[in-house]
């Protein structure tokens, strides 16, 4: 599972046999006599599962490192390096903060990510509304200015920020990292929020205004609630990007040690098992949050359906 040619069939050959050979169409008319829903199922099952197999192999490739991280969080390595399996131990899980500096770096990362998210979300949401809702001079220029930071390798942006700080004689540390993080998160927030606003039906706002809501009230009661998922997505993205960022932090941190910086620094002297514990815990918390969100969403939908008197399967049909 190292991405060698083994699991990599060319897309054409993978998808081609995924459907059925040419004689298939003759069978299609026959399917119309079958009960409803049958043709679709037949078609899906008819193809050999090559596409499915290739897709699942890719999924394994994606998830494998997380499983390895989890596995090695229970390892008790002989030396300093945690790359080969020795024996089972839950020591690291019972005391994740026992390694000097690890939890401090985690706290610093969370602090920076929280402030960066706040800054980028406020600035980005305002800009997104202006870009999506108004026409003004210089709009293409602003669009380009927002887009460019995402269109170049991270290391270039990191290097340019470092030259700025060096030339101005700013001391590197918490503040330079925060400024840098807000800068690169900003574009992502603008893009996420703008996409949401643009996909919004303007007639909803017209309706609100026709019903004598003022501009402020229309904004607060109609526009903002509809845009909220976009803003939330942008904020979440900003948090994730900032928390996990290494390259830009590497250039602008000076002696400040965020969690990724800690991991990077520990590679030479041997990464402690506790790093795997924290990685696995983050994974578990996030997956649990997603699962809980799904359950709540399903529950809420089911309740709404019951109230509306629609059959439960209606949403499944619609989606």
């Amino acid at each position: 599972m190292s991405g060698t040619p083994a699991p990599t069939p060319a897309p054409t050959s993978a998808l081609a046999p995924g459907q059925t050979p040419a004689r298939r169409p003759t069978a299609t008319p026959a399917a119309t006599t079958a009960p409803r829903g049958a043709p679709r199922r037949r078609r899906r099952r008819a193809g050999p599962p090559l596409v499915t197999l290739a897709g699942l192999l890719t999924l394994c490739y994606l998830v494998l490192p997380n499983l390895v991280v989890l596995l090695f969080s229970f390892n008790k390595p002989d030396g300093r390096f945690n790359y080969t399996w020795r024996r089972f131990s839950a020591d690291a899980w019972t005391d994740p903060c026992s390694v000097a500096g690890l939890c401090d770096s985690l706290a610093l990362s969370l602090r920076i990510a929280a402030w960066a998210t706040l800054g980028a979300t406020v600035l980005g949401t305002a800009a997104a509304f202006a870009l999506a809702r108004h026409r003004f001079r210089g709009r293409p220029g602003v669009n380009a200015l927002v887009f460019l930071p995402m269109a170049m390798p991270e290391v270039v942006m990191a290097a340019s920020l470092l030259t700025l700080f060096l030339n101005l004689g700013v001391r590197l540390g918490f503040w330079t990292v925060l400024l840098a993080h807000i800068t690169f998160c900003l574009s992502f927030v603008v893009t996420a929020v703008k996409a949401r606003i643009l996909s919004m039906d303007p007639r909803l706002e017209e309706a609100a205004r026709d019903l004598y809501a003022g501009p402020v009230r229309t904004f607060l009661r109609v526009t903002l609630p509809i845009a909220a998922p976009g803003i939330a997505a942008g904020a979440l993205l900003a948090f994730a990007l900032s928390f996990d960022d290494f390259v830009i932090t590497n250039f602008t941190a000076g002696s400040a040690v965020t969690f990724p910086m800690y991991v990077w620094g520990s590679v030479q002297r041997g990464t402690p098992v506790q790093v795997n514990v924290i990685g696995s815990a983050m994974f578990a918390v996030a997956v649990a949050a997603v699962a809980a969100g799904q359950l709540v969403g399903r529950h809420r939908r089911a309740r709404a359906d019951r109230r509306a008197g629609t059959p439960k399967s209606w949403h499944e049909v619609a989606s």
Partner: protein
Amino acid sequence: MSATKVSGSEVRAPEIPGGDTNAPEVSADRARPGAPTRRGALPYVLLLPAVLWLLVLFLVPMVYQASTSLQTGSLEEGFEVTWHVRTYADAFGAYWPQFARSLLYAGSATLLCLVLGYPLAYLIAVKAGRWRHTLLVLVVAPFFTSFLIRTLAWKAILADGGTVVALLDRLHVLDVTGALGWTEGNRLLATPLAVVCGLTYSFLPFMILPLYASLDRVDVRLHEAARDLYASAPAVFRRVTLPLSLPGIVSGTLLTFIPASGDYINAELLGSTDTRMAGNVIQSQFLRVLDYPTAAALSFLLMAVVLLLVTVYIRRAGTEDLVR
């Protein structure tokens, strides 16, 4: 649910390069009746903070970087702008192999991402049915563990004498890759293959999500119509599915290639001194050697090369799209 929403908006982001020229214009027209009076100052007030921020912390740094690249001097005596353009020639002369390697590795990783990611995106968008959400979560989930920790996990997976190496050795795969110059002896770590696999792994979700978004929008009835018109399965894929997923392919390849070309983490953790990429050189010049003019020149060169390639690519992809 929330995770898929995140991915959804994240997916929409990359389409700006291709679609930005007309999409916002159209939607602005559509949006205008929604905002009835054009209060002249409001957009500027809303924009001002963000634009100022980006000017000061994105454009001005670029200018500083340009000026730094034209300076000469030393750390002790200070640097001065002397319009020493030769720095660029010297830097490129000294480090062109790393640049070539960057483009080669990033290109290979992008191609691998496409080949690996397409079936999965297709599976999720077309075939997964009620498993769709679960699969999407599984694609996004690895993000939740720190990028560096996951790359280190590859170090354990590909470790010398590990299961993977032993298996590939027994299957004689390592002989083949060794003959191609991708690996050396019977190890995977510290070889070009390991770096490319690491890059592929790192940026695979950036390929899958846009592909998924564009495949998801393809009307299944188009497939059925093509089948009813006696198109063979390969023909349906080539003439219907593939062209319709082209926007996803363009944004996916961009989202993979751009970050991969500047990456230095995979080359540092999974590679050796023979697999150093442009990012590694820039990083070490800036943070270890402290030769700022050379470092700034290299960074500028990387930006120029990537922007040039991306522009050409978007142009070509755009026209191809129109021709079809």
